[in-house]
């Protein structure tokens, strides 16, 4: 087995009395494309938010390249309300990295409900993604002593736009682009942070079948070009089945299955819960 990139151990996320994720454990290995699927409201985006540091999990730990990036156990008021397992297991190892720190370590993400910088052009959106790898400080930047780096970043941003096929709209306001292009722009922006793990939250939402097929090819291409590991939340089963090495299925915050696309397609629990009735 190759080296694992991301590992979730017993993650539970509870909002007040509502358990959004319940004792979720998973691992993603280097070079894999792994998908997380499940019905609406199953807690997929919540899982992403726990990985990227937007939420602090109620219980459990997240490892990235075997380094803890989040670890918590129920405390305070939550101690009484906690409805998950193993409240004691992660005692004494409280870690909560901020999202920017996690991105800095090499996890980049896109958002389900596109969050581009709305006042800026497509080009500037990508350029902002290069900011975290800066060597300049606020003084050298103000006095434009970092021109070399700045030019390199500009070139890189342009290249990325080219790769996602948006070079011709570089100077357009990001939010004036059509939906599909905005999604690709989000990917370009995420790539600009030089990640090793890319989290895609429903990248095909709102795309037609043709675009979806292209997106699948595109994800595989960038995975190879940038040496990425990809973790994707998606509803389009064709896409999921087409590109994933492995798939996790969750329902009501709990994992109900894990395996290769073939295994998942034949898994009775999954069919019952998800594929059976409501294919979206």
């Amino acid at each position: 087995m190759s080296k694992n990139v991301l590992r979730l151990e017993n993650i539970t996320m509870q909002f007040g009395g509502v358990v959004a994720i319940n004792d979720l454990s998973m691992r993603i290995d280097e070079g894999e494309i792994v998908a997380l699927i499940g019905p609406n409201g199953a807690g997929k985006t919540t899982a992403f938010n726990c990985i990227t540091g937007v939420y602090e999990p109620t219980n459990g730990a997240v490892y990235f390249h075997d380094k803890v990036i989040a670890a918590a156990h129920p405390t305070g008021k939550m101690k009484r309300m906690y409805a998950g397992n193993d409240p004691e297991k992660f005692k004494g190892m409280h870690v909560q990295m901020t999202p920017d720190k996690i991105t800095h370590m090499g996890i980049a993400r896109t958002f389900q409900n596109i969050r581009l910088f709305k006042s800026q052009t497509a080009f500037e959106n990508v350029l902002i993604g290069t900011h975290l790898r800066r060597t300049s400080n606020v003084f050298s930047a103000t006095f434009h002593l970092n021109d070399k780096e700045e030019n390199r970043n500009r070139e890189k941003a342009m290249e990325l736009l080219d790769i996602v096929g948006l070079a011709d709209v570089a100077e357009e306001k990001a939010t004036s682009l059509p939906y599909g292009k905005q999604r690709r722009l989000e990917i370009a922006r995420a790539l600009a942070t030089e990640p090793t793990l890319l989290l895609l939250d429903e990248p095909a939402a709102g795309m037609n079948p043709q675009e979806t097929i292209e997106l699948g090819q595109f994800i595989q291409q960038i995975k190879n070009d940038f040496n990425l590991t990809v973790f994707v939340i998606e509803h389009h089963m064709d896409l999921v089945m087409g590109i994933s090495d492995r798939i996790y299925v969750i329902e009501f915050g709990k994992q109900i299955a894990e395996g290769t696309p073939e295994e998942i397609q034949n898994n009775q629990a999954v069919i019952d819960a998800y594929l059976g009735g409501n294919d979206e």
Partner: protein
Amino acid sequence: MWDTIFPYLLSGISVGGQYALIAIGYTMVYGILRLINFAHGDVFMVAGIMMVYIVAAGVPLWVAIPLVLILTALVGFLIERVAYKPLRSAPRMSVMISAIGVSYTLQNLVLYITGGLNKQYPTIPWISETIVLGTAKTKLVTVITPVLVIVLVVALVMLINKTKIGMAMRAVSKDFETSQLMGIKINQVISATFVIGSFLAGVGSVLYFTNYTTVIQTSGAMPGLKAFVAAVFGGIGSIPGAVIGAFIIGIMENIIKGLDVILFKSGLIDKPVGLATFSDAFTFALLIIILVVKPTGLFGESAADKV
């Protein structure tokens, strides 16, 4: 010791009650619109000025007081219609700036009308009388204020819990969009909120200016800010919170004013150190502390942001 502290407590309770009546307006508007209505303190001041002019025009007090309260409610209603309603879909900062603009306008308008001079507030008989309470002498209004505040708050809470418009208010404050979809007439609810808030500010103004007797265009600014701090302190959006917060702020402020005396009398300091300088500053220090330690205030509920 008690004799030393009691007069300050009394002053604090009195001013706290008046803050409470203003704070309710802040907290209700914030609950529904998520807007700090910076002009609310000025509505309070305008109520005072209207009273001065209406009584000066020869209207008897028993007509003037209800008239002022109705007009104040109307002022609140108009402000919302003119300055906030057109901005309903605008960013929050725009609405807040509009509120600051309204405050600026009201102050300047009153400056123009009064010529920038202090106006003597009409004396309202009975509640202006001096009474003796233990070691302290005070106006009767000091004692009436907290009682009246409690009565009004109970009435308000009943209104919110029992009536249709109250229910609508609660719904809107929980979820603006959804309640709109559910067919609640948002604009009516918001207007009602402003009318109630302004009406209470009007009541507060009668009590406040009976105690402190002069009105000028800036009279509303400080009480307004303090009342807002009280609303935040108690947990903005919560009416009982605002009231309790207001009493705490009022009492603390007066204790600070007398802190030199209290410390001096109890032998902790041997000469006054001028802490009264910080009577206003202390209120804001308290605000910053509460915001940092418990941003939702004493009784506020926290809500997670959706990502």
